[in-house]
């Protein structure tokens, strides 16, 4: 990954979000059950929502992505990864989504560490923070439903 300027980074992030959306579109298409088709479709739309947000940042030229620390429930950290299949349950879908968001978070944090200057570092951190927020949204749903009595 060779980033010459801020736009390269944002293009990379936009591409990442589209890839995530495509991944969920495929799962939606492959799923046997109607409600899981709808679930993955909704996940895909969420990813496209993230893409739109980053695209807006790029177009506006205002590179301020929030850096406030996002709550990390760390649920995803200890869950066994879910395997993709045409018969995934909603629980497995949430695990999959959490793990993907965490991986994206780690990637951006790694890139922020090796970024050559503070502007780029901060932008990567901001993008990592966005992924942390997405993960938290899935963790909260998992927490509320699967751990209802815990």
């Amino acid at each position: 990954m060779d980033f010459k300027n801020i736009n390269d980074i944002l293009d990379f992030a936009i591409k990442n979000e589209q890839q995530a959306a495509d991944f969920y579109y495929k799962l939606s298409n492959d799923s046997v059950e109607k409600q899981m088709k709808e679930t993955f479709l909704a996940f895909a739309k969420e990813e496209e929502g993230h893409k739109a947000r980053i695209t807006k940042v790029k177009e506006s030229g205002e590179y301020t992505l929030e850096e406030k620390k996002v709550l990390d429930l760390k649920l995803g950290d200890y869950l066994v990864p879910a395997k993709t299949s045409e018969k995934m349950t909603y629980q497995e879908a949430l695990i999959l989504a959490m793990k993907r968001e965490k991986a994206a978070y780690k990637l951006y944090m790694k890139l922020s560490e090796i970024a050559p200057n503070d502007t780029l570092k901060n932008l990567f951190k901001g993008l990592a923070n966005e992924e942390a927020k997405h993960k938290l949204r899935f963790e909260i749903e998992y927490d509320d439903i699967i751990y209802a009595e815990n």
Partner: protein
Amino acid sequence: MDITDYLKEERNKEWRKTLRANIKPKDRTAIEKVKMPEENPNIRNTNNIEVNKGLTKEQALIEASRCLDCADPTCIKGCPVNINIPKFIKNIENNDFLAAAATIKETNSFPAVCGRVCPQEIQCEEQCFYTQKLHLPSVAIGYLERFAADFERNSGKISVPEVSYKNNIKIAVIGGGPAGLATATDLIKLGYDVTIFEALHEIGGVLKYGIPEFRLPNEIVDIEVNNLTKMGVKFVKNFIVGKTASFDDLRNEGFKAFFVASGAGLPNFMNILGENSINIFSSNEYLTRINLMNAAKTQFDTPVFSGKNVAVIGGGNTAMDSVRTAKRLGAERAMIIYRRSREEMPARIEEVKHAIEEGIEFLNLHNPIEYIADENRKVKAMKLQKMELGEPDSSGRRRPIPIDGAIETIDVDTVVVAVGVSPNPLIPRNLSNLQVSKWGTIIVNENMQSSVEDIFAGGDIVRGGATVILAMGDGRRAALGINEFIKSKIKA
């Protein structure tokens, strides 16, 4: 007559007026709330005898006299099946215990069950005038309900509503748990030919497989179920609708409507490392095998291993039932592992109190993150993440947050996972035109009717895991819905 007029008319009867005049309200409110007699904790934790012994006649009379017989009985609003609470309590005060039981049975055919397992403290008793206005302990409505039901049963004069009218229209109820039993009761009274199809070999659903005998003796359930048999409800056991026969098969046999009450029998696991190790059970399996299949008794051939160091994950009633069962099966350490603090526990206060008395250890603010197995793949230890409480979540409980680096390992030889349950997936997955939520619950309208017009549903298959009495409330609403549906079909 609408419900308000009915309550008013009942309240204005002479015997109620006389009773009210007998004791001044300030003298009634000065009476201390009765205490439920209980078995000795150090003895009961070695056997299966029911913990709560029930009120004596003298206690019931005194407690009943605390009830003010309010003009606006808010307690009824807190009851999902709208029992005429003041009327049954005043019948107790009037020494007419059979009339008290009959009053409860006007709207609830399972008073001995509900008197034992309903969370009255967050339902009728929470709405009691004492709680709301006087900020005093409520009238012990649940204890009194149980007293009336037990008195009737022990008297040998159990009243069974007479079912004289029969319309010969066949209705299938799928699942013999609280929701299914409640629907069947109301439908049979309306004249329908009702058959309950039950997957297991016993009727009662969660009342039998989920709740241990020390909290709800099976005999109590059997007697109340038997009343339904007397009323004409038919039971078909070991029959799985969706496997043994399809909905179409049953339609061909003449069933005109269905009530799906297949419950939340699918346990949630946490999906953490090592959770597949031997001797890690779901609470559903652990309790079912012990409660329903005699697994803890050596003379039966389906033994369940229950070790010396037992950890139960969760803080609900099912977790309390599991951990107290483990103690009774000989655990030296029977522990609750719960992510939050005692204040956030979903279990009833009484169950937590009983567990503490019986020597259960509570590792609150701890969450399992990994299980470690020995060379035979049997669980031998678990890693626990210590937690602290953050901001309240959507349930109003403070959300647990892991404390960085605070991880400890404890020895365990048995683990029971009781973090929650999901709806039984068989029917939702097998009917393509049935509208189902992403969590697998059946979506219904206000009449409990699903997207398939002759299929109604209620209880945990709709709610995803709730209380016995809420399931019964669903069942009663569904019976009305089914009746309307059949009437509309006849008209058409």
